[in-house]
């Protein structure tokens, strides 16, 4: 019985070491991919959050909690920020050589308003 217990504890220890050290044993290209994915996930979350803010602002305006002037100003700012996020997402997706310069004209202009 004691041997079985000893083996179980050793197996648990081995499993813990395997799980915990896996990132340290990963290859460099996997780490690079993870880094890029992290940047993309941050931007996706920011985009989602910005879209929600735009929808919220519109609902606030339509239910009488934002004046039209405040809403238009806020909406313009939020859409500008959303476009900037989309541009940075496109930069991540595009190959490095094709990526537009950060201050390329026409980028980041709010659409429609």
């Amino acid at each position, binding site marked *: 019985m004691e041997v079985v217990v000893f083996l179980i504890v050793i197996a648990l220890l081995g499993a*813990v070491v395997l799980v915990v050290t896996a*990132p*340290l044993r990963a290859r460099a*290209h996997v780490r690079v991919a993870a880094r890029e994915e992290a940047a993309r996930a941050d931007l996706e979350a920011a985009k989602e959050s910005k879209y929600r803010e735009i929808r919220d602002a519109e609902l606030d305006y*339509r239910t009488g909690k934002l004046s039209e002037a405040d809403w238009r100003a806020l909406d313009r700012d939020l859409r500008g920020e959303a476009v900037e996020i989309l541009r940075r997402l496109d930069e991540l997706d595009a190959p490095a050589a094709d990526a537009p310069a950060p201050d390329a004209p026409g980028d980041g202009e709010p659409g429609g308003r």
Partner: protein
Amino acid sequence: MATVGRSCLILALGVCAYGIVASLYGASPARRAWADSGRRAVYAVAGLATVAFAILEIAFLSNDFSFSVVASHSSRTTPFFYKGAAAWSSQEGSLLLWLWLLSLWSSLVLFLVRRRLRDVTPYATAVLLGFGGFFTGLMVFAASPFALLAAAPADGVGLNPLLRHGSMMIHPPMLYSGYTLFTIPFAFAIGALAARRVDAEWITSTRRFALAAWFFLGIGILLGARWSYAELGWGGYWAWDPVENASLMPWLTGTAFIHSIMIQEKRGMLKIWNVSLVLATGTLAILGTFLVRSGILDSIHAFGASTLGIPFVLLIAAMIVASVSLVVSRRRLLHSENRLDSLLSREAAFLGNNLVLVGLCFVVFWGTFFPLISEAVTGTKAAVGPPWFSRYTVPLALVLVLLSGIGPVIAWRRATVANARRNFLVPAAVGVVTAVALVAAGGVDRKPWALAMFAVAAFVLACVWQELWRGVGARRAMSGEGPARATVSLVRRNRRRYGGYTVHVGMAVLFIGVAASSAFQHARDVVLSPGQSAKVGAYTVQYVRPRAWISVKADQIERVNLGADMRVSRGGKVLASGTTYRGYYPAQDPTLGPVSQYFDGEAESQVLIKAGLRRDFWSAIQPDLTRVQPMIDRADKAMGKMVAAGAKPAQQAVALAVLLRTIVDQYGVHPPPATFRLIDSPMVTWIWLGGLIVFGGGLIAMWPAPDAARRRVRAGYRARVAQELGRA
């Protein structure tokens, strides 16, 4: 298996220590692999805690009395249903439950943000592992759930009878989920301050966990209230007990945080306030855990005196020092991006809501710790009672409910006369009409606080109805959908907003119940013999006949029950018949005689409740044991003679059963008068209904948007493709 359990805890302690070092070392962008390793240390702790918890549960379910905690908190007669829950009725088992839930929730949040907030998460991981290490350390060095007895007894002491209630199965895991979930925004706040990334992103990432903490802690509090009402035999649902208060304090500040983060997200304001609130909430969650375990304050819910107080005090001190230092050192980063434009604005309403909630928390804190404060100042321990709490909490609660109506409809930045009229005219009219109608109906004019609460609650319900009406109108105008479809899509697309409004409706309903049941309750303690009746409020209650019987479980006597069959009527019409009784469980006290053990041990009340939407009838019996005491004494003497004569254990068990049966039969034939507590309490059911609505709203607000879930799946696929292309 105890050795495996102990080994899991020792391994978990080592993994926590490693993970803290790896996470902090991996905070530099060049050493991300170490941060990932630290994150995986949290997963490993979750795995080890799961194995340890499973071992403890198996020990309870299989009656392994070689485990000290099983022998002292379970028995063969404890129903299977409660054996599983008995694990966390002990100090040691509840520490393990804390660690298990903490590690699971921490793993979940770190898994969800594994590709995000790469600068904040290493510090947050270290903090979460710090909490894990603290609780694991307590179990390894001070209160091991895997301590073994030198010789296993044939049977255990049994679960405290007061805990044998359905809600007690769920109440502690809910409370602990709330406490442990509140450590997550705490950890991310520390991480954000340490990484100097104090934008709203850490809030966005952990908001759902703050909401989940609020949700679970709220359910725990409500289940505790329900247990108190149905089990404790005094007829109330809230007694301002220190341990109840301990769970309420982080819930109040957590509620404030959930509201004020909206101001930071929308306007970039209140950054110092938000970060301070969440740090205070995390600290209060640990303070709540400390209060239950230290024995410094007397409470029916506490584990009693223990040696765990000092480590907890050190942990709380460390949390306060770290929080204050970080907030002070990062104060320049935390400046507001905008100013408050007007006191008549949504921002001001939210700020008011926060001040009231924090004010309530302060009142509860002061009242809870008053015995310690008074002892420190005067040398005498003095406690404050429910009237003291009511003096301050009632007006504050009234303002809070009022603000829960104003908040959803008032304009951002500045409310003009025109939009204030448009938004408040109908709800204010509904509130006034409600007040006038109630005064005209009579009976409420001497209860101004209750009248005000009914009017304010009506105002809130009207505000939310109007807001939903307008939202549906706007949705229909934009999409051309029908009313039902527009309502569903409106809520689906704005879950957080309409989930929140639903919570406000639930709180209004709940406070109607609290106001009505507090202000218009009738309670009496009466002594009745069989056949006699008494009146309480609108009810007439008759003690029909005595009831006495023995409950047997696993071929052993579980408890002796003495009670009464009652008949409840109103206006001459019989509404209900039922039994209220008191169950007496045997004490494991060798100084008591074998029969006395059944009457001098723990007892639980089984109350008779006739619940309805308009009013509850509540009744509990307190049998007069002095009249049966001579029989108990004679039975003890008879048992003593049998033991002295060398009777075998089996013969003793049979004799004990016969003697107890005789006492029970005598009680049934010649019942002494019994004391009854009778209560007519209006609208208590509204409290439970309000709670259900609140938590329904919480679920709506927490539920992830389907498009977000799809996007996460797509992101996962993209990561996989990138990784596999890299390998090829």
